[in-house]
């Protein structure tokens, strides 16, 4: 009996050791497998960043001696394209803090600036100041490339770098330090999507309006919006505002200057649809007019889950001003206003002067393939933070709806938009 117990004990212990060893082995194997995949991704991101920055450096270098606008345009477009690739891959090398932001910002703005210069060519050649700036940017990119190469040499990128997280971040330390300490990169003065100009924006509509106190705003919310709201906080920024909460519903924001409603967002389950889109559009127009925004008309509406999203733009003398935009969300069960946003209007609306000197509507030419349904004058915002007067041409081709925007002065096409055909498709209201 004793012998049997002894054998059982030994067998039990051996089984236990074998089981634990197997489990451990399984874990180690699986961990190694995952680490290899992660390392490969990390190494790929590093090499792709290196390739892209290397290309940018070479193209900027060539730009210092190039003088023909065709070649310049090609080189600038290459810089722009490679900056996009570099940003995607640098993003994957990010560390636990915000150090990567400065590098990303530099590369993004460099690409954006190159695109800006390229889009001006050949009509507006690169001037001396721009050429000097490009040369400075080249020198910084040269340094960035050196640091990136150094980072790769300092550790073996291919072996387990991703696992050693701290080391991974440290790899790019030289690059981060460069942007934190030794490089004071020049401001790229232009109006592009990534320009610093967009961070600080003027609220044109609020200029000259008096600042109101909190109590007055509270009274306004009750009388005009019909909410019982309680004060939450003040926000400073481009549109200094008061924020009020509406219990169980959402919150509403009102500007301090001029007591202008800025935003309201709420959510609830919407019951069965009882009102048409047209009714909701009429409701949105009267609601916005009631808030004191005159001359607004619905220009776009889309439905989603029995909610209608309506965009209203300012109209004067038959011209639609798309930058002066207000958005309204209405529930189709009882036509309750579920949200609004007037920031587009507040940032952009100012006294509009008549659009004069444009070509006649009859001169507008678009692709023969398009069956044109309407043409109207519209001022649209450009990605360069400017506005241009255009003819908005609505049309269809192979069952799809397109909007083509043609410069009203030069008759050049500036933008083509296609309505995405899903169940939420919207429609321009002409």
């Amino acid at each position, binding site marked *: 009996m004793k012998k049997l117990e002894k054998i059982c004990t030994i067998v039990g212990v051996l089984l236990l050791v074998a089981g634990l060893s197997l*489990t451990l082995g399984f874990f180690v194997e699986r961990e190694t497998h995952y680490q290899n995949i992660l390392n490969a991704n990390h190494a790929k991101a590093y090499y792709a960043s290196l390739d892209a920055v290397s290309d940018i450096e070479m193209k900027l270098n060539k730009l210092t001696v190039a003088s023909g606008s065709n070649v310049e345009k090609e080189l600038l477009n290459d810089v722009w394209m490679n900056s996009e690739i570099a940003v*995607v891959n640098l993003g994957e090398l990010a560390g636990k803090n915000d150090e990567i932001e400065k590098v990303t910002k530099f590369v993004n703005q460099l690409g954006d600036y190159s695109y800006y210069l390229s889009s001006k060519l050949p009509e507006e050649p690169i001037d001396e100041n721009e050429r000097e700036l490009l040369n400075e940017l080249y020198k910084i990119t040269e340094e960035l490339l050196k640091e990136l190469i150094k980072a790769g040499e300092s550790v073996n990128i291919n072996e387990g770098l991703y696992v050693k997280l701290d080391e991974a971040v440290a790899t790019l330390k030289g690059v981060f330090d460069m942007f934190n300490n030794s490089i004071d990169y020049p401001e790229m003065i232009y109006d592009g999507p990534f320009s610093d100009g967009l961070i600080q924006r003027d609220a044109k509509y609020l200029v000259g309006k008096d600042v109101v106190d909190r109590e007055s705003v509270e009274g306004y919310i009750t009388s005009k919006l019909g909410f019982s709201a309680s004060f939450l906080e003040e926000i400073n920024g481009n549109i200094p505002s008061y924020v009020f909460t509406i219990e169980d519903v959402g919150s509403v924001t009102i500007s301090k200057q001029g007591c202008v409603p800025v935003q309201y967002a709420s959510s609830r389950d919407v019951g069965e649809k009882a009102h048409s889109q047209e009714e909701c559009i009429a409701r949105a127009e009267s609601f916005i007019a009631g808030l004191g925004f005159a001359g607004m008309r619905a220009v776009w509406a889309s439905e989603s889950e029995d909610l209608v999203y309506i965009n209203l733009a300012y109209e004067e003398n038959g011209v639609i001003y798309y930058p002066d935009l207000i958005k309204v969300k209405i529930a189709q069960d009882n036509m309750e206003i579920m949200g609004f946003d007037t920031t587009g209007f507040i940032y952009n609306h100012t006294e509009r002067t008549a659009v004069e000197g444009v070509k006649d509507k009859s001169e507008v030419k678009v692709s023969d393939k398009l069956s044109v349904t309407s043409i109207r004058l519209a001022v649209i915002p450009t990605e360069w933070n400017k506005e241009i007067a255009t003819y908005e041409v609505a049309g269809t081709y192979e069952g799809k709806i397109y909007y083509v925007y043609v410069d009203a002065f030069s008759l050049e096409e500036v933008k083509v938009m296609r309505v995405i055909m899903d169940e939420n498709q919207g429609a321009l209201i002409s």
Partner: protein
Amino acid sequence: MFSQKNIYKYICVPIAIIAITFSVFIIVTAVTPSGADAEAAVLKQGSSGAMVRTVQTKLKNWGYYSGAIDGIYGSRTVSAVKYFQRRNGLVADGIVGKKTASAMGISLSSSSGGTSSNSSDLNLLARAVYAEARGEPYTGQVAVAAVILNRVRSSSFPNTISGVIYQPWAFTCVNDGQINLAPNATALKAAKDALNGWDPTYGCLFYYNPKTATNSWIRQKEVRLTIGRHVFCV
């Protein structure tokens, strides 16, 4: 003192049982895909919303349900679901899980909010909102989505929604896997509002919970506003 028999009985056997249980647990845990962490979307008594209304409508059309289509999963809905399950060879537990939903011809996963949008961006954004801000006020959920979109527009971050969300260590929900949870209807609505241009933060690029944030650098950012438990900053 313990006899050899007692040692075997009281020490070796329990150790062996514990060790085997532990090993089985580890192996089961190890071979279960991490995706299983994702919360299975189910509808049960107490649920409400558009999806419940869809279930009620379907059951009513098929003659299983005679109550009101009110979007509230009450006892009558439970009975109707059980009836449906029995008739369709399913476990009659009165809960609409994956199998029952599939038998009804509805999907509870990403479209639990009843959205008909196929946009992967919307879905990804809604998952981030749900994982990061469920339980926050509605405006707070829109604000989280808006911060992600503000980052897409900012020069300091990647230029796509997926690039921003999956940037290493940018959002804790990616690290702990909560990004894979199916978003609820509110998160989808919040994401949709943000994609439609609502930004309660006026351009903020960061947010954190002051009670739980451990990074000192984020506390140096300029705070613009507080919504629920999150402070939003630039």
